[in-house]
């Protein structure tokens, strides 16, 4: 798994590449939370375009970050999930809590 974190003003963009399972869950959680804990982030964008697999450990990271950013009165957006990952996200009901977009540009255009 590769992780890219980029902060532009109060928006944290997280690009994840690879598989989101229990192996990477803890690393992902720590890296994202380190940024969120600065309290300088009010929008969290997670780009899943390059995520090839997700299970409930990966979903746990996403829902945990949603709870955290919501606690900071911020918003979270999910971007570009592939069909297989999208199916699992829908199945989990995360789509009812978090806005999902096709690509990063779609969020900028909101």
């Amino acid at each position, binding site marked *: 798994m590769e992780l890219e974190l980029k902060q532009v003003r109060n928006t944290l963009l997280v690009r994840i590449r690879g598989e989101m399972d*229990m192996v990477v869950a803890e690393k992902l959680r720590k890296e994202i939370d380190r940024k969120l804990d600065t309290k300088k982030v009010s929008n969290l964008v997670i780009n899943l375009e390059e995520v090839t697999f997700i*299970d*409930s*450990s990966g979903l*746990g*990271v996403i829902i*945990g970050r949603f709870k955290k950013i919501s606690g900071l009165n911020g918003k979270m957006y999910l971007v570009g999930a592939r069909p297989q990952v999208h199916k699992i996200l829908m199945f*989990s009901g995360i789509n009812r809590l978090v806005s999902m977009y096709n690509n990063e540009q779609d969020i900028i255009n909101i």
Partner: protein
Amino acid sequence: MNMKNYVRFEFQSLPENVSFARSCVGAFAAQLDCTLEEIEEIKLVVSEAVSNSIIHGYINKPNEKVVVMATILEDQTMEIMIEDYGQGIADIKKAMEPSFSSDPARMGLGFTFMKSFMDELEVISQPGKGTSVKLKRCFLAKNKEALA
């Protein structure tokens, strides 16, 4: 129903072996008449069951053993067994409820995925002795149509 082929392997209860286990079973499942999407579903349920063994069965202790056996029957059915010798599940009914998790960082969807993507799920567990999860799914065209 007669067995056509099987694989059986065991590995140390390390998180990095979860990917190994699901990839192995996924590659084995390619012998069935199933789609790539269905293979991804097989990989998902294996990932959930093996993660459960490591996280809940062994409470992340790294030197324990997980056994996986996958069998293809002549009627295009796949049976998968994931077994650990960990602490077991005291209340199986409760553990299988959607969104139940003894770990707040997880979604509690493992058994829900297993139930949803497989035709049959059986969990046999004894506190202090371990847990055996048995999953079954038929990939015969007529069964797939019935499920659609």
